[in-house]
């Protein structure tokens, strides 16, 4: 995309005002999106965004500028703006010699979606519409979206690193409405992997459509969720977002460094039930949050964050690792070339326990069984977090009984981690997610086995 000798000159320009670090992040994204709604393919859209962001660090100050102009003149102009923004007096010249890193493949791609005809993508959504509508006469509306994107990336910095990467992601989203005597209900499901079009050889889109439609239909008979504190059993592969919110964000070193995390100063301490071993793993092949290198050029890693309940480490990007004089962990990510990197999660999951999931339900006299979760959010400084349940049931006398209407669950991260009292042996990854932080969204994955939280507050309306 950009020759090494141009990168070298641009980085040198970035250092001219006396900065100690300069970096170029260039990307070229092309993607296709197809939308179906109301029984029709509404439109097919294709797009391209490319450009470069230039980061210059001088002491504690970061200057950043970006441009859509990838010519040498365009890059040099952006480098001057970034260098000026980070000016520390001083000045001087530094020669940079770049060494290209061998490329690394975490998620091999078999079929680049850009080589697949548009008609085949449209056809997937037609099949989704048919399958969702045949799931039940009460299904009154279906919308679905297909999207794929391929990003080529070059990262170079003044420490001599040049790394290249190519990322392909393919996503299908289905949303259904069911109409019954008590009004409308919605159901959602999605399928997304760091994979090419071969994704649809492995998974039938009809299954995704039926899962979405099934959720909407189930809720037609749902009663209002309870109000108050109860034991909560979370189905395997549906509750990873709980860990993402309850502690994942709080283990990001940038938040820890500013004292905006309840987990500050807790390394080596018991912060969760000894049943819990939590990992952030960018190397998990084909998962939605998988990356070969992070957006600072560092190889992705398998990082153990909590081991048998004990906090072992935080997640790190270049800047925070540099400040602490320790290695990066492959968690420096950004939404696009227009954004500064930050500490971000990749695929965050809890390792398997030993119990049969059925026993966990059987041993719960009264509670709530959550089979599918919506989004969530957390205040990392207090640890208070919420997440939405989009498919849930009552547990009565150790059995799953009536479906419940939607609502939020609320809890305090450190408390909920300690209150996990049962852990299943049926680990599964969940739906693809987009994690938002400081206005930037990045693709993430999560997963867990079936587990039980002793007590959580359920935000329904039934007494």
């Amino acid at each position, binding site marked *: 995309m950009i020759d090494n000798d141009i990168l070298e000159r641009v980085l040198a320009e970035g250092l001219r005002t006396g900065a100690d670090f300069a970096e170029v992040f260039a990307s070229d994204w092309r993607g296709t999106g197809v939308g179906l709604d*109301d029984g*029709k*393919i*509404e*439109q*097919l*859209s294709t*797009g*391209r*965004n*490319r*450009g470069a962001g230039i980061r210059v660090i001088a002491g*504690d*100050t*970061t*200057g*950043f*500028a*970006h441009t*859509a102009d990838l010519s040498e003149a365009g890059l040099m102009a952006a480098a001057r*703006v970034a260098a000026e*923004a*980070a000016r520390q007096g001083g000045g001087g010249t530094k020669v940079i010699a770049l060494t290209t890193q061998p490329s690394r493949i975490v998620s091999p791609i078999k079929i680049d979606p850009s080589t697949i005809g*548009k008609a085949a993508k449209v056809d997937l959504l037609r099949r989704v519409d048919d399958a969702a509508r045949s799931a039940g006469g009460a299904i*009154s*509306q279906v919308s679905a979206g297909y999207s794929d994107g391929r990003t080529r990336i070059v990262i170079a910095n003044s420490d001599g690193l040049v790394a290249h990467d190519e990322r392909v992601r393919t996503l299908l989203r289905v949303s259904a*409405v069911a*109409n019954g005597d008590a*009004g*409308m*209900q*919605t159901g959602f499901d999605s399928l997304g992997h760091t994979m090419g079009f071969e994704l649809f050889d492995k998974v039938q889109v009809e299954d995704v459509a039926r899962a979405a439609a099934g959720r909407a239909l189930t*809720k037609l008979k749902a009663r209002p*969720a309870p*109000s108050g*504190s109860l034991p909560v059993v979370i189905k395997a592969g549906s509750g990873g977002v709980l860990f993402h919110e309850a502690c994942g964000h709080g283990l990001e070193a940038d938040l820890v460094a*500013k004292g*905006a995390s309840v987990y500050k100063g807790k390394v080596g301490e018991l912060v969760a039930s000894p049943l819990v071993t939590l990992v952030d793993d960018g190397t998990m092949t084909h998962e939605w949050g998988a990356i070969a290198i992070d957006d600072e050029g560092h190889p992705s890693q398998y990082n153990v964050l909590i081991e048998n309940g004990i906090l072992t480490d935080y997640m790190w990007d270049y800047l925070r690792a540099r400040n602490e004089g320790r290695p990066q962990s492959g968690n420096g990510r950004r939404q696009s070339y227009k954004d*500064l990197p930050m500490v971000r999660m990749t695929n965050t999951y809890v390792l398997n326990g030993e119990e049969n999931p059925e026993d966990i339900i059987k041993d719960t006299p009264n509670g709530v069984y959550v089979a599918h979760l919506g*989004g*969530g*959010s957390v205040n990392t*400084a*207090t640890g*208070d*977090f*919420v*997440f*939405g349940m989009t498919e849930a049931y009552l547990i009565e006398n150790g059995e799953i009984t009536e479906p419940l*209407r*939607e*609502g*939020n669950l*609320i809890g305090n991260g450190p408390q909920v981690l300690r209150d996990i009292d049962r852990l299943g042996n049926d680990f599964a990854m969940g739906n693809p997610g987009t994690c938002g932080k400081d206005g930037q969204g990045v693709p993430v994955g999560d997963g867990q086995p079936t587990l039980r939280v002793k007590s959580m*507050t*359920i*935000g*329904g*309306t039934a*007494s």
Partner: protein
Amino acid sequence: MSTPDRSAELLVIAERVVAMAKPGEQVEAYVSRGLSTEVRVYEGEVEHFVSAQSEGIGIRVIKDGRTGTSYCGTLDPSQIAEVLAEARDNLGYGEPDEWSGLAEPDGVAVVPQSLWDDNLENTSTARKIELAKLLEKLTLAGDSRVRVDDSNYSDAFGEAAVATTTGIRVAGRENGCYLSVGTLADDGDETQTGFGFAVGRNVDELDLERAAREAVDRATRLLGATKPESRRITVVLDPFVTAQFLGIIGGTLNGESVVKGRSLFANRIGDVVAHPLLTLVDDPTNPLAYTATDIDGEGLAARRNALIQDGVLQKFVQSSYSARRMGVAPTGNGLRGGYGGSPSAGCLALQIVPGLRSQAEIVAGIDDGILIQQVQGLHSGVNAVSGDFSTGAAGLLIKNGTVGAPVREFTIASTLQKMLLDIAEVGGDLEWLPMSATGVSLVIHDVTMSGA
């Protein structure tokens, strides 16, 4: 020094694309360009300084009811030709929709807005940094228990143009600046968070003292908060929370949801859907609104639309597509998320007609209630199709007419349909917030609080 308006250049680019339409084609080109600056200060030093430039074009082509779109993040003429060719190719895969079509000029006059201020263009970088540093200092001086997470100055200017084969030709520009501060308040082992902000068309309009005071208050007032008992209760929503609630209500009053069978309020025009105290209008022509604008994303004049009058549902907001399909007049509510997206119906500037009393007067009349000062998880706990409403919250209990103990880690829940009917009072404390809805204290009866 006044900066020349260069949005006319963008209109020339858009018109050039439209001129390439073939017989039987409708073509729309949306062209935009922007520049933004962001300064983040931490402990008296600049943590980062970001200078961001962006530009792009989105093209929609419609033929025989089929739509195709394409976009790219550059205004390079060779790329634009490729974008048009792609949009044309893409329409072959869309399915015919008899209501497809671009907006057409409907004769509604544009209410001019002053969305541009030359003074902001002439503000030095040093002054911008100084403002962020000053806000951090003022906030820290407010209370010894308070730390500052980050203090930010940002400004942006944007210009855009839309041209269509149906005769739309509009261009405009706007700018503005924003200060924000994030706070942490510590008391022993406990930490609570807050934030404050100030907005303006130029830096002299930014009220730093107020931003600092609110950031301190928000963080300190929840120190010592406990988890309340579960029960049904009367809630008073703070203006900032009401504005978020109105945003959700606005999302349900949408013609596109109606035509696609996803609206709670389909077939309810003329019905009582809310307490008679509620009158809700969408009025982007009010210059006091943060999101005031003169034209919508499809190039039609922005206009005042009364959505709910004295509790009775009056109309839905429409894109040109949904208006055509419902057989009603356009409302000028085509929203566009930048050059990469197609327009869809949405509220532009929601305003609730205020009542008479202050929040203190309202609270004085409540024996047992809760003042909700912040909500968390609206995106995950509210379903605009079924109407289920459940959100995490924090606030202060109200006992015998006075606010007292802080509470947190609980939810409030009801349904949107019921909440609108359960409105008991609309406050007179109207606030123009940096959001697409205004705020006012709002009292709602019989909401379920879930806690311990």
